[in-house]
C-alpha cells in the first residue's frame, strides 16, 4: 500500500470532515564505529495520522495499522478525541485544495538502493580513510500524502542519502558530511578522506583564552547555528508568543547587509518538498533580505491567529508535533564573493576557524543566544592563514551578533543535513556558505580533539 492509498483509505474510514496524512518510509542506515559496522538498521513503516473535525472541535489519532480494522480503529479514536475537545475558536478549518508545485527530489536509483548497496557504500567510507572512522551511510525512499474531505489529494515520493564521517584516533578528529536526494551525488570515500585530512591537522591542539574572536564558520557549523536560531525566531508561533528575536523587528535591519536568508523548499539543490503536512503548497519565503528582516514562516493555524492578514507559507508541522509551530526546514543563506574559506581567513586576519559545532542549547530565545562547543576541527587563524589546531571551545553567542558584522561569505553553498532521523524520516537540511564574522564569543575551554 502506498502512502497516498493509505491516506485515502483512512479518509474513507473516517467518513466525516477530516484530513489524513500518511507517511511511508523504507530506509537503511549502516552505522559504523572504529571502522566496523555496529548498528545497521533497516526500517520499513507506513503510518497514518487522521485529524477529525467536529464543528471546530479537533481530534488527532495516529496508527501504523493500515488494514481496514486498523483504520476503523484510528478513525474511532480521532472521532472520540474530537468529540471530547472544546470548540477551538481559532481553528481555521481544513485546507482547501490548491495546485502544488512540480519539484524534483525523487531519484529512482536512490530509491532502489537495498541493504547490500547501503552496506557497500558504508564500506567505501570505511576503506577510504587512513584513520578509524565513525559515522554512517544511509539512504531512503519516503512518501508523504495528504487527503482531506475538502478535496486535498496530494502525494510526493522523495529520496535522500547521507554519508557522515568522524575520523578520529587518540589525538585527532575531523568531520565531514554529504547530503543529497541523489545518492550518486555522494562519494562516501571522499567524505571519509575529507574527515581524515581534517583530523590529521588537529594533533597537538592548544587552548586559547576565553573572549570575543573573529571567526570563520564552515557550512557545517553555520547551518547548525542558524537552525537553532530558527527554532524560536523564524516561525510564526515564535513571533506570536514573543520569544522570537524578530518580534517587533520585522522591517528593520537586523543583520549585516551581506545576509540574505530564505526558506527555499523548492530548490532542486536542496531536499525539495512540494507541500506541507496540511497539503498546502510550499513556496520560497524571504526571511531576511540584505540584512533587513522580512518575515517568518507560517502555517494556517498561526496565520489565522496572527489576525494581521498574513497567509500560510506552507510550513505546517506534522499534526501533534507542532509544539514549536511552523519551522523553516529548508533554510538557504545566499553566498557571497569569497572564493574559499582560505580567503575568509585572510579577511579576518586573526581569529578562529570552526568546522562544526556540538550539542547546542538555546540560552535566551528572545535574544537568539545559543551555547555549544566546537568539535572535530577547530583552528587558530593567524595573519590571515589557518594555523595550528585548537582544543574544543565552548561558545555562548548571540546569533544576531554573529550575523551583524560579517567579513564575507563563500560563493559556494553546501547542503548540510539537519536530520538526526528521530521518529518518521522527515529529512531536512540547510543550504549555506561558509561565513566570516567579527564576533564569536568563546566562554570556556573543552577537551582536546580525539576519541
Amino acid at each position: 500500500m502506498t502512502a497516498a492509498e493509505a491516506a485515502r483509505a483512512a479518509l474513507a474510514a473516517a467518513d466525516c470532515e477530516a484530513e489524513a496524512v500518511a507517511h511511508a518510509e523504507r530506509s537503511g542506515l549502516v552505522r559504523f564505529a572504529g571502522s566496523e559496522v555496529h548498528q545497521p538498521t533497516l526500517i520499513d513503516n507506513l503510518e497514518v495520522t487522521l485529524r477529525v473535525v467536529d464543528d471546530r472541535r479537533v481530534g488527532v489519532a495516529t496508527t501504523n495499522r493500515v488494514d481496514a480494522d486498523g483504520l476503523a480503529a484510528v478513525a474511532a479514536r480521532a472521532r472520540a478525541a474530537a468529540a471530547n475537545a472544546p470548540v477551538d475558536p481559532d481553528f481555521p478549518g481544513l485546507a482547501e485544495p490548491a495546485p502544488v508545485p512540480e519539484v524534483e527530489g525523487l531519484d529512482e536509483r536512490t530509491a532502489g538502493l537495498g541493504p547490500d548497496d547501503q552496506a557497500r557504500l558504508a564500506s567505501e567510507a570505511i576503506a577510504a580513510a587512513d584513520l578509524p572512522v565513525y559515522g554512517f551511510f544511509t539512504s531512503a525512499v519516503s512518501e508523504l500524502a495528504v487527503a482531506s474531505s475538502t478535496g486535498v489529494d496530494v502525494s510526493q515520493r522523495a529520496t535522500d542519502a547521507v554519508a557522515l564521517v568522524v575520523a578520529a584516533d587518540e589525538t585527532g578528529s575531523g568531520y565531514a558530511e554529504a547530503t543529497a536526494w541523489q545518492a550518486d551525488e555522494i562519494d562516501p570515500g571522499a567524505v571519509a578522506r575529507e574527515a581524515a585530512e581534517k583530523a590529521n591537522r588537529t594533533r597537538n591542539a592548544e587552548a586559547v583564552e576565553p573572549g570575543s574572536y573573529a571567526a570563520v564558520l564552515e557550512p557545517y557549523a553555520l547551518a547548525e547555528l542558524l537552525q537553532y536560531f530558527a527554532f524560536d525566531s523564524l516561525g510564526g508561533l515564535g513571533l506570536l508568543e514573543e520569544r522570537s528575536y524578530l518580534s517587533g523587528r520585522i522591517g528593520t535591519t537586523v543583520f549585516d547587509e551581506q545576509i540574505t536568508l530564505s526558506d527555499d523548499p523548492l530548490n532542486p539543490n536542496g531536499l525539495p518538498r512540494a507541500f506541507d503536512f496540511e497539503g498546502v503548497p510550499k513556496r520560497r519565503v524571504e526571511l531576511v533580505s540584505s540584512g533587513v528582516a522580512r518575515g517568518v514562516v507560517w502555517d494556517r493555524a498561526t496565520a489565522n491567529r496572527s489576525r494581521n492578514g498574513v497567509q500560510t507559507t506552507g510550513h505546517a508541522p506534522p499534526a501533534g508535533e507542532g509544539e514549536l509551530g511552523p519551522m523553516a526546514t529548508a533554510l538557504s543563506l545566499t553566498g557571497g564573493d569569497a572564493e574559499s574559506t582560505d580567503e575568509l581567513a585572510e579577511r579576518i586576519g586573526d581569529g578562529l576557524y570552526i568546522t562544526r559545532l556540538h550539542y547546542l542549547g538555546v540560552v535566551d530565545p528572545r535574544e537568539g543566544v545559543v551555547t555549544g562547543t566546537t568539535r572535530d576541527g577547530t583552528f587558530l587563524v593567524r595573519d590571515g592563514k589557518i594555523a595550528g589546531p585548537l582544543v574544543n571551545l565552548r561558545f555562548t553567542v548571540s546569533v544576531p551578533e554573529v550575523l551583524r558584522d560579517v567579513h564575507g561569505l563563500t560563493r559556494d553553498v553546501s547542503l548540510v543535513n539537519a536530520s538526526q532521523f528521530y521518529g518518521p524520516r522527515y529529512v531536512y537540511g540547510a543550504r549555506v556558505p561558509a561565513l566570516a564574522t567579527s564576533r564569536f564569543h568563546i566562554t570556556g575551554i573543552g577537551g582536546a580533539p580525539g576519541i
Partner: protein
Amino acid sequence: MRDLCATAVDAAVTAGATYVDARAVIVRHQSVTTKNGRVDGLTDSESEGIGVRVLVGGAWGFACDRRLDAEGARAAAVRAYEFARATGTVSRRALAPVEAQTATYRTPLERDPFEVSIADKVAHCLLADDALKGADVVLRQAMVRARREHKVFLSSDGVEVEQELIECGGGIDCAAARDGVFQLRSFPSAHVGSSEQGGWEVVERLGLAREAPRVAEQAAALLRAPVCPERVTTLVVDGDQAALQVHESVGHPTELDRIYGTEASYAGTSFLKPGDLGSLRYGSEQMNVTADPTTAGGLGTFAFDDEGVPARRQPVVERGVLTGFLTSRETAARIGTGAGGSMRAESWNRMPLVRMTNLHLEPDEGSLDDLLADVDDGVYMETNKSWSIDDKRLNFQFGTQIAWEIKKGKLGRMLRDATYTGITPEFWGRLDAVAGRDAWRLYGLTNCGKGQPGQGAHVSHGAVPARFRDVHVGVSA
C-alpha cells in the same frame, strides 16, 4: 506476540544467525495540551511492529516490520540476517551470559490513564491553564500525557519476557514578556513537564492548578529581575537541575558504549576510560550515584532490559569514586565485568542501545534550607532552562529558569538568565553538601536522545538539592 517472536527467532537461526532476539511491541501514546485557554493538541497515537536483531559471525543486523503477523516476523528476521551478512564485521563479538527464563511484568498503578476520559484530561489542563493567568503573561500552557508499551521479548538464549510499562505525567509552562524581555517558568520541570511510571494518580499528585499561580507570579517577576552577574561563587541547585546535571555529566559519560566509541559520530564519547573503573575520582566524598531500574515510578524501570537481562541496582559512583558503568551484554563481555542490563530501544523499529535507566544522586542529610544556611554569599538556581555539554562530557553549561542571590544563609534578590559552567570532575569535586532523603524527588525526562537513527529514551533521576563551591556563574554572550 510470543509466537511471532518465536517465528522470527526460528527464521533467523535457521538462516544461520548465531544469536537472535525479537521484540514485538505495541505502543500507545496520548497527550492533551492547552494553550491560553484553548486545546492546542489532542493526540492519540499507536504504533506496533516487530524488531529482530541478529548476530551473524561477528556482524550485527537489525530489521523491523510493522506487520504483527507471521509474514512480518519472518520478513524482519530474514532481512536482519541478510543485512548482517552484507555489512560483515571482522571482530568476534562475545555476549555476557544470561540465564534462560520466562517472566512477566506490569507497571503497578492505581488508575489506568487510558481509562480517564479525554474530556477529563482536557478539563484538568484547562483548570491549570486558567490558573496561570496574570500580569504580563503571554503564554499559558498545560499538558498531560500517558504512554503504554506492551512488549514481548524472546531470544535464542532462552529468555522470554512479556512486559507492560505504563507512564503518565504532565506539566505547566508560563511565559511573560515586556519591553523586549521574555521569561519562562515551568512546573514541575521544563521540557514537557515530568512523568513517572504509574497511572493517572501521577498527574493528580502534581497539583498543576495548585502550583500555577506561583509559576505565573514568578514568570512576571523575572521580567523585572536583574540578570545573574558573572562571578565565581557558591552554587546551590534544586533537585530538578541536579537531576539534569547527573544525567549529562554522570549518566552519559558512564555509558560503556560511548566509552568504547560507538556513539562518537553523534552524541560523542566520554572522558572516562575502561581502566578508570574502581579508581577514578569523579567527585567529592559526598557524591554517590546509583543506577536502579527497579525504582518505583521510574521511567527507566523494568523487570528485564531489551536484551533480556534482569534489572538490578548498581552503584556508579561511591563516595566520589567511579565504581560502575552502564553496560550491554556485549560491552560487559568486552570489559570483563558486569552483566549488561542497560539496553533499551525506543520502540519496535530501533535497535537497543546502552541507555540510562534510573540514575540517582543519593541523598545525604538536611534540607535545602540547611544547604543555604552555610552559604554567606552565593546563588541558588532552580528548574533547568538550557543545557549543553561537550562530546567528551567534560565542559558543560547549564541555564535555569530562575535564581536567587544567597546572602548570609538566606535567599535574597531574584535573578534571571542564570547560567553556570564547569568541567565535570572538577565540578563534582566541589560538591560539599547534598540534601537528605526528605528532599529526594524523582524527576522524569522524556527527551534523552542518542543513536543513529535517533532514538528518544525516557529516564528518571532521583535527586536532591546540592551545593557546590567555587563555581563560575553568570556566563553570557
